[in-house]
């Protein structure tokens, strides 16, 4: 039994924490959020040079990490600083899918991702699919030697910046079947591909994507026809570890900001943290924060194991519950100041709560847990 980070991960954590504390201030981040691109290419490239993206891939894929604890280490730090750059979308989802499914012609894209030279996005969720991973109405039909895609994709994060979109489509089966789902590499300039972009509440950008007779060569398919679901589910599992770790990091910051505020803000002639009613509530946050940390460790440790899905459902449910508590209590104990855009906690609280809207909310993961426990 050993719950310490390895030396390499400790170094990664230290490097990343120092860089972000130094370069990713509240002002810088708020400027990035307001910018047209919604992320900073400069920060992205510097983090790539520091090896942050490489840490999310294993050696075989051209990286030097890729395990659950590598993902957790990186995303906890990104969460602590409220980073809005699309590491989840480009690296964990996009890069991860190409690394797992790509052929020799496609795999060089992963090197570009690790070098920081390529942005990616996953177009999978649809207007009617909510969090159901296998519910897919977008179609892929064979036409001569080509594939033709038709459908709509909802809230595709990082779609506008992506050089390639990885788009899921059904080649066979019924609307909720796991079999029959394929993934395709769609260049951002493909004819028939439409993007309607917008900013998101917690930073970053997404787009509604329409596919109207998008014609692709057979070589655009990632992996075998109709066989993408298991790999997709595995990458979404990795994304869930990353999201849980990101929320944990953000909760650490929310808790630390609250501690500082409680000990410096004076009302009725003394620091408000000396009122027992607030001190006890702050203690509850610390207790729940340790629960969240353990949940992330459970999920990260089982990412490549047989109990992956149960552990991840468990972690995301707990993180969802604790996240809401921490975000709401941190705001409440601060009072009005936490409601202002320029105060760090406002953004951090949004990051925490809005993770509940990607790849399943607290209730979705509770139901997954119940179903998997019964199985």
């Amino acid at each position: 039994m050993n719950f310490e980070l390895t030396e390499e991960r400790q170094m990664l954590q230290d490097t990343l924490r120092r860089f972000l504390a130094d370069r990713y201030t509240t002002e810088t981040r708020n400027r990035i959020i307001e910018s047209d691109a919604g992320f900073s290419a400069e920060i992205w490239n510097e983090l790539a040079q520091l090896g942050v993206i490489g840490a999310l891939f294993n050696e075989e894929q051209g990286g030097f990490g890729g395990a659950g604890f590598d993902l957790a280490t990186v995303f906890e730090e990104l969460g602590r600083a409220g980073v809005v750059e699309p590491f989840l979308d480009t690296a964990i989802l996009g890069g991860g899918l190409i690394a797992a499914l790509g052929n020799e012609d496609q795999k060089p894209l992963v090197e570009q991702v690790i070098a920081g030279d390529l942005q990616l996005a996953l177009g999978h969720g649809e207007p009617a699919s909510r969090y159901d991973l296998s519910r897919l109405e977008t179609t892929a039909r064979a036409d001569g030697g080509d594939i033709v895609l038709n459908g709509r994709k909802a809230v595709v994060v990082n779609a506008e910046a992506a050089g390639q979109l990885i788009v899921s489509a059904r080649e066979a089966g019924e609307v909720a079947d796991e079999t029959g789902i394929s993934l395709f590499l769609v260049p951002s300039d493909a004819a028939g591909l439409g993007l309607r972009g917008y900013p998101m509440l917690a930073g970053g950008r997404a787009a509604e994507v329409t596919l109207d007779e998008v014609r692709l060569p057979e070589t655009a398919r990632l992996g075998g026809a109709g066989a993408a679901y298991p790999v997709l589910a595995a990458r979404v599992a990795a994304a869930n570890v990353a999201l849980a770790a990101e929320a944990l990091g953000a909760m650490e910051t929310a808790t630390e900001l609250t501690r500082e505020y409680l000990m410096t803000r004076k009302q009725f002639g003394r620091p408000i943290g000396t009122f027992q009613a607030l001190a006890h509530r702050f203690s509850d946050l610390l207790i729940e924060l340790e629960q969240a940390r353990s949940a992330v460790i459970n999920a990260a440790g089982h990412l490549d194991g047989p109990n992956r899905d149960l552990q991840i459902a468990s972690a995301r449910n707990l993180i969802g519950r604790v996240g809401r508590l921490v975000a709401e209590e941190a705001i409440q104990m601060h009072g009005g100041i936490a409601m202002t855009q320029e105060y760090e906690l406002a953004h951090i609280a949004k990051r925490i709560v809005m993770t509940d809207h990607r790849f399943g909310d607290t209730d979705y993961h509770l139901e997954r847990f119940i179903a998997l426990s019964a199985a």
Partner: protein
Amino acid sequence: MDLSYSPEEIAFRDEVRAFLAEKLPREVVDKIRMGQELGKEGQERWHAILNEQGWLAPNWPREYGGCEWNAVQRHIFEEECAFANAPRIVPFGLSMLAPVLMKFGSKEQCDHYLPRILDGTDWWCQGYSEPGAGSDLASLKTRAVREGDHYIVNGQKTWTTLGQYADWIFCLVRTDPDVKQQEGISFLLIDMNTPGVEVRPIILLDGTHEVNEVWFTDVKVPVENLVGEENKGWTYAKYLLTHERTNIAGVGFSQAGLDTVKRMARAEMSGGRPLIENPHFAARIAQVEIDLMAMATTNLRIISKAAVGQAPGVEASMLKVKGTIIRQEINDLARRAAGPYAMPFASETAEGDNDPIGPDYAGPVAAQYFNYRKLSIFGGSNEIQRGIIAKVKMGG
């Protein structure tokens, strides 16, 4: 014990409903439902419609143009307005300042200011909180020094709601720094156009501009703008706070919000079935609805006491705490119901592009969830309310 309205009260409710159906503008309702800001013009429009009907000032006596409604009638009116998605009337002049002027102000002040509140000439805002005086309001530092027939005011107010539109601000200022905190405060009316008054916007976490900082630098205020006696302002402020607490439970808002959540949950599909049939989500809705049903009756119990002249005391604090918990729970349900479509930042995309991203109901819910965290912070935070309840009920 009779849980139902009297025939007269039902007739009144029907009259209110008919009025709202006829006179509440459709565009205004759409904006409220979509969580969009109404702006000054939108607020003033609804203000004028109510004034024309003679229903703008439910709690004012008739001699000043009020309705003299009792507590039950006021409740019915507020509830129907909330159901109909009518704008909340800006309360600062009508239900905060006006009662203080009537009780403590001079005849000249009442005759001058009250008609201007009704006809919309003056938009009022409230100058209470300061950066160092929030929950501990009595520690306020904004200073007013008498010089001849003027006060010279210096200091800073904050969280001034809609101060950017205001013509006037009623302020708590310190006129005597050498006595017990509560005994050196005065209640002063200040023209926002006086030199030395500066309004600086505070942008909230959902990108909205509804509150401000108001700075005073050597602002000259005529002594006739003092309300009541010098150094008695704390008494007036406490009186005002009891009036601030009308509709404190927000039952109508919660019921309207719950209807919206149900509408969303019927439209959203989860696992191939409407979300409202999902047992976990259905349980969440049921739980908050059960709480709301009980609170609605608690609210009526307190209102019917008030209707026979028993002023609510600690019950107002109880309603504030429970009412905000329920409203915030409903906001959370709306956020959940929207699913992935809670993520787009609707107010940013709305400019020049009015088609919603995803279903129309999803646009405002996440921003509202964050914005309405303010409910348990402002008007005396829930921690302050719990302190009041404990102090009164434990006799400490």
